[in-house]
Each structure stands twice: as structure tokens, then as C-alpha cells.
């Protein structure tokens, strides 16, 4: 009985230790990321001298992800139209499909879809690129030349992603509306005119600016988290892989958490 009790006690303390270590690691990384973002905002004053790098990063985030954004946008709209349209059809209200699509896309789905795509494609690439630079001494080489890695690498990436994310988000929303129109017309038998008329009715100024604000903040979060994990990569290629994976998981979580709080702030 005593041995059993001691064993349970050991397991409990080991579990507490694990939770504590995880919490400390989380707080350490969160603090580092926030400081990194703060330093990155400070270096915004040097953004004109980094215009070329910012445009390059915008090109990678915007143009290079165009195909996947198009597909995700169209299919998200088609799925939404199909799922909501079939239910609405039961009440003879399938003509409202457009309204539902634009409302859900502008409020939540557009920025969220953009965040998922850019986390997976651009954020992971940022973490891997900066992580590789770290393990191959390129970050140390910058320090030796008295060049701030934050100004040189982080600020252009944060600026580019914060600027391009609302654009990608709007692009996905437009394509989702088009995808929804195709399903509404072909399966739900809603004419394009009726679909568009109700789509317009679903557009609300508040939904648009809150959606764009979300996209903007998601851009800052994804780039900041990815750069932070990249800059802290250790132990060679294995460390780069770990940093990349961790940056994707952390970005997803942060996008979800911040997404909820922004929604609660404006609609709660």
C-alpha cells in the first residue's frame, strides 16, 4: 500500500514537473517572440531601405501561393454553399446562400483560411530559412558585422506578411463567393442575379474591417512566431526541422486564440 502510494506520488510529481517545464518553455518562447516583434516594430523606421526585401517577401507570400489560395477559396465557397444551401432548401430559402457565404467568409473564414495557407507555406519556410541561417552561422556573421538580424531578416518579413495577409484574405473571399455561386446555380438552382443580390445584402462594413484587421494581426503573428522559432533553432538540421514544426503548431494555436479574442472584442 505504501509502495503504491509512493509510486503514485512520484508519478504525480513527475507530471507536475513536466507541466511546469512546458509552461516555462511556453512563457520563454512567448516572451522572446513578443520582444522580437517589439524590436521589429522599432526597426520599421528603416523599412524604406529594406523595400526590396519586403517586396520579395510579399511576392513569396502573395504570388507564390496564388494557386493554392485559389483552390482553397473556390472549394471553401463550394462546400459552404452545399452545406448551408441544402439545409436552407428545406425551408425554401436557398436564395440566401450568397448572404451566408459572404457573412461567414468576411467575418471569420477568409482571414482564417489565409492564415492556414500562409502558416503552412510561408511561415514554415521562414522558420526553416532563418533556422538554417542560424545553424550555418549566418546569424552570427551578421552580428559580427554589427548588422541586426531583426532589422535585416525579421522586420521585412513581418512587414510583408502583415501587408499581404489582408490582400490574400480578400482574394480568398472573392473566390469563395465565386465557388459558392457555381454550386448555388448548378445544384441549388439559384440564379446568378438572385445569388449576387443577396450576397450584397450580406456585406457589412464592420465585418469587412474586422476581417481585415484579423488578417493583418494574423500576418504579424505568423511571421513573428516563425522568425522566433527560426532564430532559436539549434543542433543542426534536426533543430531546423524541430523549429519548423513547432512554428507551424504555435502559429495555428495563436491564430485560433487571437481570432477568438478579436471576434469577442468586436461581436461579444
Amino acid at each position, binding site marked *: 500500500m505504501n509502495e503504491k502510494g509512493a509510486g503514485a506520488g512520484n508519478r504525480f510529481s513527475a507530471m507536475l514537473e513536466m507541466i511546469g517545464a512546458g509552461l516555462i518553455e511556453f512563457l520563454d518562447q512567448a516572451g522572446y517572440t513578443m520582444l522580437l516583434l517589439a524590436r521589429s516594430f522599432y526597426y520599421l523606421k528603416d523599412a524604406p*531601405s529594406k523595400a526590396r526585401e519586403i517586396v520579395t517577401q510579399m511576392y513569396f507570400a502573395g504570388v507564390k501561393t496564388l494557386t493554392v489560395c485559389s483552390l482553397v477559396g473556390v472549394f471553401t465557397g463550394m462546400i459552404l454553399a452545399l452545406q448551408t444551401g441544402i439545409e436552407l432548401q428545406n425551408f425554401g430559402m436557398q436564395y440566401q446562400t450568397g448572404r451566408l457565404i459572404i457573412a461567414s467568409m468576411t467575418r471569420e473564414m477568409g482571414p482564417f483560411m489565409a492564415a492556414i495557407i500562409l502558416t503552412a507555406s510561408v511561415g514554415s519556410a521562414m522558420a526553416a530559412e532563418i533556422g538554417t*541561417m542560424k545553424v*550555418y*552561422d*549566418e546569424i*552570427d*556573421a551578421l*552580428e*559580427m*558585422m*554589427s*548588422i541586426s538580424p531583426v532589422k*535585416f531578416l525579421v522586420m521585412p518579413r513581418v512587414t510583408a506578411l502583415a501587408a499581404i495577409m489582408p490582400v490574400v484574405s480578400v482574394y480568398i473571399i472573392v473566390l469563395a463567393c465565386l465557388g459558392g455561386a457555381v454550386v448555388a446555380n448548378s445544384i441549388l438552382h439559384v440564379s446568378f442575379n438572385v445569388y449576387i443580390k443577396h450576397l450584397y445584402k450580406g456585406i457589412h462594413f464592420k465585418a469587412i474591417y474586422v476581417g481585415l484587421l484579423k488578417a493583418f494581426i494574423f500576418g504579424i503573428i505568423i511571421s513573428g512566431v516563425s522568425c522566433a522559432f527560426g532564430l532559436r533553432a539549434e543542433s543542426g538540421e534536426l533543430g531546423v526541422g524541430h523549429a519548423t514544426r513547432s512554428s507551424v503548431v504555435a502559429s495555428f494555436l495563436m491564430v485560433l486564440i487571437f481570432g477568438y479574442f478579436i471576434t469577442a472584442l468586436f461581436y461579444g
Partner: protein
Amino acid sequence: MTVIEFIDIHKSFGPKRVLAGFNLKIEKGESFVIIGQSGIGKTVALRHVAGLLSPDSGRVLVEGIQVNGARPAALRKLRERMGVLFQSGALINWMTVAENVALPLSEHRRFPRREIERRVDEKLELLELSDAKFKTPSEISGGMKKRVALARVLMSNPDIILYDEPTTGLDPVMSMVISELIRQMQRDFGVTSLVVTHDMKSAFHVGDRIGMLYGGELVQVGTPDEIMNSDNLVVRQFINGELEGPIRAQ
């Protein structure tokens, strides 16, 4: 005049003790080589001079100024007079050779663009890299990468250059080219050099003095001749690459 001084440096990574009572003085204009097995702590010692690592205890002085614990502004000032040739070259992959070489000056905008271009051309010519000016690091060989990295280091006219395994991964001819360049920097520009390597041919070529790192400290320091004719079992086993002796494979 002593330029670099390590005073009783101790450094551990977790349970692994890397430097334990490491002491060394390097004089102005001298070329000092630290030899030793891979993973023994040679690069760790070198990084302390650049302020990229801090010791657990002890002091690292560069021209009398303590590097460990120095304020960022003081460290920046010290680093302006120092260059590091990293093992990998540490070139920025998306930039051309010319942009990489120009980096120390172009980022700080202290010189007009024409002056930077002139200096870049001058360094590229010195290191016979003019043909590679517009190539990216992925388009040039390992030896060229090292030379580009050296050209970048020379852009700020440093008084001290730290070389981290400058010949690793290069063929014997290219190794000798790089070794000769290190000598040339010392001869022509009066640079003080600290080289870490396990390439014995290069060590004997570039070193005015050589120190063997083993067990966290320098077990012998001497001229190339003294090292070559050493009675120390560790040194003899290492320089001759013998299987039998006190050194065990790590």
C-alpha cells in the same frame, strides 16, 4: 603587445566540460593556431574572442578590454576591428558575391555607393574572385565561398581575424591556397590571427605558434618546429594520426 588574452576560462555545455582552465596570450601581428580533435572545444574558444559565447568563469580580453560582459555598444566597437571567417563561410544565400562582400559597409551606409563598389572590386581582385562577382553562393565552389567570406571580412579592414576551420572540406591545393591567404593577410596587413584547425599541414604553414587543446586546456604551446618534435604523447599521437596513445576517439 598582447592583443588577445584568455584568463582561466571555464565553459561547460550541460554536463560536458569543454574548457577547463584555458589560458592563452596572443601578441600583436602573431598568427596563433589551436589544434585538437573535432568537438574538443577549439571553436568554442574562438567564439569567446568574438563575444559569441560567454565563459562560465574567467575573462577574455581583446586589447585589454574585457569581451565577456561587455555592453552591446562596447562589443560592437570591438567587433568593428575584428573579423570571423566561419567554417561554412556564412554567406547570405540570396545575395550575389558582390552583395555579400559589400554587406558590412552597405548595411551601415557610412560610405557612398561608388566607394563601396570600388572597395568590393578591390577585394575581389585581391582574392581572384572578379569573375564570380555576380554569382550567388550556390553557384560557386567551397574554396571560392571561403575566399568570398574572407573578402567580406577584409572589407572592414580588421586588425584581428579569427579563422574557424578555414580549410575543412577543401581539396589539398585549395587548402594551401587558403593557408597562404591567411599568411598574406598577416604579412601585408599586419593582421593578428587566431586559427582553429585540425588540418596539420595548414597549421604548420600558417602558425607562428601552435597550441594543442586537450582536456579543456592547452597541453602544449610552441613554434611549429617545437610541436613537430614534441615529446608530449598527446601532441605526438595527434600530429602523427596514431591509433595508440592517450587520445581516444570521441
